[in-house]
């Protein structure tokens, strides 16, 4: 296990290095600078290029960037008043998390609950309702859901605020107000997760419930609820865990659009602004951050399988 972990971490470092290199050079391919404004005089442009170290040869810049990166410095943003990229990312991250995390937790928990209910009462009313629910929310894209919520829940019935509002005491927005305004975006992302997790949980639990050891447990004299909680759900949970990884990624992708809809000042907003303004270091920084997050999540989940279920052989790292 330790060997495998170390191997994976080594691969992670190698992959990150490749990603950084790829990003660094690909983003420069089109040859434009962030200072392509006609208002900026050539002299000023040269000065700015010098200030951000963009005047040196690419290889020198690359080496310097890698050196800075080892120190945890992602460089400085060009458009955002010279702030450091890592600081910008850290200031935007809480908003992304505030919307994404409830979506994930809500989605996975409710999905498991509904899936378990559907499997236990298989063929019954709950099962049919849950299946219909799952089909509807798997096929309706999250952005359509978001638009529907905004139209009905916010504009027509005014139950929720139309846009997300970050907590800001000076404007009288308390932490709870902010939480309340994050419900709609979280729901828009979360409902898709509920149905995916539900379908998965249901099929796993149905399989477990039909197995012999459940019959044995019943024959031993355990009550039905006890069997389900102690034996069935526990065993069904292990494969369900595998879906949490893809779901986390789903949240990250989903938040790209949803943040735009609800005006969440999160990571994707930062990214789109950076691209729009040719803010080179910011684009690079956010790209690296996204990749890092992605790879670490995949790694953690892969390692967790091994911890949770020793039967899952991790040799070779193949899926």
């Amino acid at each position, binding site marked *: 296990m330790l060997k495998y972990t170390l191997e994976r971490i080594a691969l992670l470092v190698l992959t990150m290095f490749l990603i950084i290199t790829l990003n660094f050079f*690909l983003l420069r391919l089109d040859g434009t600078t962030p200072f392509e404004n006609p208002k900026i005089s050539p002299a000023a442009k040269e000065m700015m290029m010098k200030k951000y170290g963009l005047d040196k040869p690419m290889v020198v810049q690359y080496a310097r960037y890698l050196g800075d990166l080892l120190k945890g410095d992602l460089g400085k943003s060009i458009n955002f008043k010279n702030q450091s990229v890592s600081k910008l990312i850290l200031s935007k991250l809480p908003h992304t998390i505030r919307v994404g995390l409830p979506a994930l937790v809500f989605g996975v928990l409710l999905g498991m609950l509904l899936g378990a209910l559907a499997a236990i009462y298989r063929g019954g009313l709950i099962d049919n309702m849950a299946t219909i629910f799952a089909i509807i929310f798997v096929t309706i894209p999250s*952005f359509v859901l978001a638009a529907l919520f905004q139209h009905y829940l916010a504009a027509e019935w005014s139950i929720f605020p139309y846009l997300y509002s970050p907590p800001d005491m000076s404007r009288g927005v308390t932490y709870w107000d902010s939480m309340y305004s994050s419900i709609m975006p979280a729901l828009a992302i979360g409902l898709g997760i509920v149905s995916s997790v539900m379908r998965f949980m249901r099929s796993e639990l149905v399989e477990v419930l039909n197995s012999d050891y459940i019959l044995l447990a019943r024959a031993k004299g355990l009550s039905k609820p006890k069997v389900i909680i102690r034996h069935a759900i526990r065993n069904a949970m292990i494969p369900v865990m595998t879906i949490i990884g893809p779901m986390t990624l789903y949240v990250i992708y989903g938040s790209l659009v949803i943040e735009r809809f609800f005006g969440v000042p999160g990571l994707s907003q930062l990214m789109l602004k950076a691209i729009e303004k040719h803010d080179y270091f910011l684009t690079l920084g956010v790209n690296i951050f996204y990749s890092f997050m992605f790879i670490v999540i995949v790694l953690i989940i892969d390692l967790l399988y091994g911890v949770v279920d020793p039967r899952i052989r991790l040799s070779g790292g193949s899926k």
Partner: protein
Amino acid sequence: MENDKKLDKNLSPDMFKRTKVDITEAEKMSVESLSFWQDAFRRLLGNKGAVVSLVIIALLIIMAIVGPIKPINRTNYDDSVFRYDSSPVVLGKDGKVLKKEEIFFLPPRIPGLEKLGFFDGTAKAKVSSYDLIVGDIPRNSKFNDLRKPQNKGKLVEELGIPYHPFDINVTNIYEKDGELLMDYKVNQSGEEKTTKYVDMISEYSLYQPGSFKFIDTSVDEFGANTLTVKKNYYKMQGVEHLYFWFGTDKSPFDNWTRLWIGVRVSLLIALVATLIDFSIGITYGTIAGFYAGTWIDNVMMRFTEVLGSIPFIVFLFIMISIKPLVNAFVQSIVLAFGTGRALMYIAIVFFAIFTINQLVKLYRKQISKKELVAHYKNPVITFAVLGVIQAIVTYYLKSRDMLNANMATTEVISFLIIVFAMSLTGWIGVTRIVRAQIIKLRDLEFVLAARTLGADNSRIMKKHLFPNIIGQLVVLATFKIPSAIFTEAFLTFIGLGLPIPMASLGVLVFRGYEAMQVQPSMLFIPAFVMSILMLAINLLANGLRDALDPRMR
């Protein structure tokens, strides 16, 4: 037992006749034998959900083909039918062409259905009392001055209306004895009055009698009076004789036409992206799976692992950042193919490789000269020859300047960029599955048998391994299409979509979202069609999975 005896009594030998026994008949099947696909299709037809989705998909495809062909009353200025970059001519009642700016955001209106009360060209809207009473006054120096709050009195005088909208609260508008009346409360004195509606509004009011229906009124905490009315947009814009089935957007494009063009483009993007994913994925996966355990597989799979560990969005971000460069790249590819040059190169390379291969075999005495000639009938070679011919023809045309070098239009390029973005990492999943399947299959006896009979690696891959996984691949591809439609919409939302006049379901939903508060149907109709399409394809894929799975037989 008793029954048997009874039977015995009733039966006598002369009731039976001995027929000729034909041993060969024993081997004959009484039921017509079914091929794998016939059987799968029969089982698919037994699945209700799959059949219904098949019908829905077929309907949508038919609509995508014929839907935009004949837009009613909507030929373009140059007599062509709908194109992306042109808006339709709209004729007024007197047969004159209406100005583009005069028509915008018409709601759906369908003949027949409008009598039942929906799709009747009306929509609920919130109106400020200022719009209702004063209306859209011209923007010139005289009125600009009057618009200022301190000139309220002068404005009222100029327009010839009794009150400024800020001085009254409208409480009701209703019809009585064939006349439209308005109840209102004067804010300062508090008295309630009733006046003829026509006398209350200026000539610039957008809400002339008959063009709307009063529903509700409200006054908010700041004292602003808002009315909810059911507007008849067709009457207001003077196109009462027209029917835009799904309404128009602000340009105005006909939403009906755009919807079906959108379905067409979305399906096309999904199909092309899936095709690319699968051709790369299958080739790559088959080779990797076949050589599993050797360094070839190791290198190949490491590559996909590294590529796959880079999130899709990072690629997208890079592509958006260097969009002009990607544009130029795709354009050069399109041009190369358009002028036949790329095809020529490919053909020459194919031809060269094949010839070298054959010559090597001849030299090693693996094949005779006769066989060498026979091998050139291979379809690959046909392709190569055709490619060469086409290249020569194109070259000939080009040398005489008969081929416009600017063949690559913006539409094709933006279409290809989306496909390119989707296929960048899309093939990896296919590769993994194909490889796993091939590894499972390649140690089975029939492969050994084929090898014993002298089949070489490429023949085993093509003729023995690949046909065995095709069923699964069909299912996988069907599942891939809805996700590709979704991804296309997703790309539109983050700014890598088709340019504005073009239509795809994603673009339509996005435009609809922007216009949601003005005209919700612009969002709901494409969103509904998109969801139905995705649902139908998903259900069909489920049905196919069950039908193609031999274990379910």
